[in-house]
């Protein structure tokens, strides 16, 4: 009996000690979001790091993306990069990363036939990265080449969008192309290791999984990722973006066949706000991405053949431009959004007219709003169309995690709910409240930027000619558009040589000074 008591006491002490140790070492639990689908043979992982380019270290802009690249395009403690690639190959499994401003998403996809081996490898890359010096050289070269060669030299549409983002969020953590040339050059492998150690913590890593996985995998993942250093997620506070005054135009000078144009302004509304859904209807009517529904598309391309497409957005839109899906990427959430118009490249001689035509339609859109019939049609469209956005488990998982980021109900469900109670007055009020056609950032990528700037600053007429007769109505409208007075903020409008874009942390200021030197 006594012996039992001693044993019991000893056991109790052990348990208490264990509890004590546990409470002393209690870590922030790793967050998990899952969508279980028993019959799905494809398993998708979306491991989100709640850090992005806004967490970059000053002078080392791009370190967040480069560290992520070292994980997905590098090895583990046990395996070199080449060995990782060789293991993944026969399974046709994918591992990729989507570094962004607020978060960084590691995506893994595998058939369930290979899940066990894949998970071991995927988790090992994240938890025990190799950080090999040769891999670092290769990945840094890639990151630099993306800025210096791809964006500056071979992709005018994305160049225009990045230049626009930089201007709109000047002096703000969002205001880079998620890296700078000088920042990448200054980053060493030791910097990357230190960044990893500091940033990849239990509080910042967020696991997402979808498909027909064994349910025991969830507990296993929580346990495995709990081995990361302790750390809480504390979001970086963001300043309010500066509001443009008049039209503030960045003319990016580069050799180019055609002229790419973006315009817009910061927007104080996101998916968590009720007005977002009113603006969603308004925006769909005005410029739904890659459809023929929008006013912009019909007036600029449909009536005038100005370019390939003309769209508008109430949140930053990434993806959806290839021949495949026209739907946006998931897992690119931002706490501060923007309203924007994207005009795909126009013939250089029509660029000035195209900007005016977009401004003309935007003003009409804000002044007139939607009729009840237009509202009803558009609302019905979105109610059905939004259901197509989450066709795969992978996208459903992405949307679910984004909804949690914004602190709102499931996005697609919420759209349905909000649309039901929306009125045309809500939509027209939201347009007038949130869209400001008088104060916009504009980015124009052009061969001959200085001449275009001079023409635009002088508000010179920009007549358009057609290869075939167009209707009297359009010709009359063209007369108004081609002389439309644009209130351009001359002091804030500048020519930016492309080779200096993405170079430094605050390109706007540096480049404006250089442009002034050119003028002298």
């Amino acid at each position, binding site marked *: 009996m006594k012996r039992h008591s001693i044993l019991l006491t000893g056991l109790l002490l052990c348990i208490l000690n264990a509890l004590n140790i546990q409470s002393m070492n209690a870590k922030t639990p790793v967050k998990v979001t899952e969508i279980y689908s028993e019959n799905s043979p494809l398993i998708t992982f979306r491991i989100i790091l709640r850090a992005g380019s806004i967490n970059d270290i000053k002078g080392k802009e791009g370190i967040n993306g480069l560290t992520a690249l070292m994980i997905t395009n590098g090895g583990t403690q046990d395996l070199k990069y080449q060995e990782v690639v060789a293991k993944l*190959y026969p399974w046709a499994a994918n591992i990729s990363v989507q570094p962004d401003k607020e978060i960084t998403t590691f995506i893994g996809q595998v058939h369930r036939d*290979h899940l066990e081996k894949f998970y071991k490898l995927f988790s090992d890359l994240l938890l025990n990265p190799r950080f090999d010096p040769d891999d670092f050289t290769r990945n840094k070269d890639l990151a630099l080449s993306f800025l210096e*060669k791809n964006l500056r030299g*071979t992709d005018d549409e994305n160049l225009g969008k990045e230049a626009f983002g930089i201007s709109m969020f000047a002096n703000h953590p969002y205001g880079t192309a998620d890296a700078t040339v000088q920042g990448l050059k200054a980053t060493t492998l030791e910097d990357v290791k230190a960044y990893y150690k500091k940033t990849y913590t239990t509080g910042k890593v967020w696991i997402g999984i979808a498909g027909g996985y064994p349910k025991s995998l969830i507990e296993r993942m929580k346990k495995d990722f709990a081995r990361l250093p302790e750390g809480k997620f504390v979001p970086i506070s963001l300043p309010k973006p500066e509001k443009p005054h008049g039209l503030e135009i960045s003319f990016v000078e580069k050799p180019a066949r055609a002229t790419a144009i973006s315009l817009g302004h910061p927007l104080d509304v996101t998916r968590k706000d009720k007005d977002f859904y009113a603006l969603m209807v308004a925006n769909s009517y005005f410029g739904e991405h890659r459809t023929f*529904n929008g006013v912009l598309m019909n007036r600029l391309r449909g009536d005038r*053949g100005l370019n*390939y497409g003309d769209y508008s957005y109430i949140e930053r839109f990434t993806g959806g431009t290839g021949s495949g899906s026209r739907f946006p990427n998931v897992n690119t959430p931002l706490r501060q959004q923007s309203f924007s118009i994207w005009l795909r490249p126009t013939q250089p001689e029509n660029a000035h007219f195209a900007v005016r035509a977009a401004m003309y339609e935007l003003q009409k859109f804000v002044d007139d709003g939607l009729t009840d019939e237009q509202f009803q049609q558009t609302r019905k469209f979105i109610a059905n*169309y939004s259901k*197509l956005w989450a066709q795969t488990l992978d996208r459903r998982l992405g949307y679910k995690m984004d909804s949690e980021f914004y602190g709102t109900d499931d996005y697609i469900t919420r759209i349905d709910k909000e649309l039901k109670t929306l009125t045309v007055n809500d939509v027209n009020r939201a347009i007038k409240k949130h869209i400001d056609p008088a104060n916009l950032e504009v980015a124009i990528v052009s061969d001959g930027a200085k001449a275009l700037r001079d023409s635009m600053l002088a508000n010179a007429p920009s007549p358009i000619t057609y290869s075939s007769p167009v209707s009297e109505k359009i010709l009359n409208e063209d007369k108004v558009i081609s002389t439309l007075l644009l209130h351009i903020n001359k002091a804030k409008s500048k020519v930016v040589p492309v080779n200096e874009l993405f170079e430094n942390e605050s390109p706007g200021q540096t480049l404006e000074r250089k442009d002034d030197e050119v003028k002298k």
Partner: protein
Amino acid sequence: MVKIITVFVLIALMGATLSAESPGAKDKVFPYPTRQTILDNGLKIVTIPFDSPGIISYYTVVRTGSRNEVEPGLSGFAHFFEHMMFRGTEKYSKDKYNDVLKSIGADNNAFTTDDYTAYHTLASAEALEMIIDIESDRFMNLKYSEEAFKTESGAILGEYNKNYSSPFMTIFEKLRDAAYSSHTYKHTTMGFLKDIMDMPNQYKYSLTFFDRWYRPEYCTVIVVGDVNHDKVVALAKKYYGSWKRGSYVLDVPAEPPQTEEKFVPMSWKAQTLPIISIGYRGPAFSDSKIDMPAMDVLSQVLFSQSSDLFRKLVIEDQSVEFVQGGEQDHRDPELFIITTRVKDPTNIQKVQDEIYSAIEKAKTSPVSGEQLAEIKSFLKYSYAMGLDNADAIARSITHYVAMTGDPESVNKVYSLYDSVTPEDIMMVANKYFGTSNRTVVLLTMEGAKQ
């Protein structure tokens, strides 16, 4: 009442063993049951049930692409015509057509390739009849003015402009132009720029183009998702039944054998690293001959991320950013294209030599059984993993229907992959990778030192 002939019924009556109803099986790479019915006018209807509650993907594939552009000066017309198909009919004007799509919340678009043009709609299954109504109407009754035609040509130029800010598109254009002398693969699907500039003057030809190619015998309707075959056939009979067959016979000029290596230097005004693109004239797609599947396996041997060349050039030497190679499926013999971006211009020749050396090795060194098994596994899983939604499945079957007219080709060709031997791989390496069968395009930055 339109008489329809259901293929599997007809074949059953003839006592044949073939059937147009593929039940689907887990051991096949394409595991979903497929049913096909051919209407009396030649239009094929293919349905594939898939677990996408309330959603269907509706494709119309026209086996007409830039390959059909046989007249000089009219390249790019298949693609231009794809744009014109959105310009309306008497029953459904351009705006009315769009209003219908808007009312059902459909995702709707189209694309053109060298060999085919595909029109696709993703929407609620409840909208099936509405979709068949508007789609059949534009395929049978398209009507547009000369003014609308000319205006749309501006959008085509805009599309050319957006695509050609990338040097890769320009390189591809030059490679095709140099490698081919007679066949219509000489031009890209976008067409030559001079022909695009002349498009506004070709209204009459556009009418001829529609009359020739937008005929039921060139088309297949593919519906995937929450779908009932009999219902689709009944509706197709109602809406497409009066569509008349055409009479035009395509005669694509045969390409003579290439007799000497060709080299095309190019310069690029904006920032770029040197890009080498090497094209070897390869075989046509086939679901019965071993050449094309063996070439696909060879492309993995030489250029996949597990290849020796990738290890050497990308990982060890780090002399290139990437290296890739392969041949896209085509109805006629197409180019096997190798592309690489070289980090240091002084290494261009060295990189080229490494690529040629890897090809020479593949001609005489058999691939190990282990490597071949891994490649076959990769091909099978990478295909299967892409079939995760109705639209992806419809798009995949569209491709195989475009190649051969037969949706079952996907399973036939993957059976061929399984049968590829190391000898087959050496055979195609020797047959297609000769120096005189090669065209090289080298793009460098204007004014850059090499």
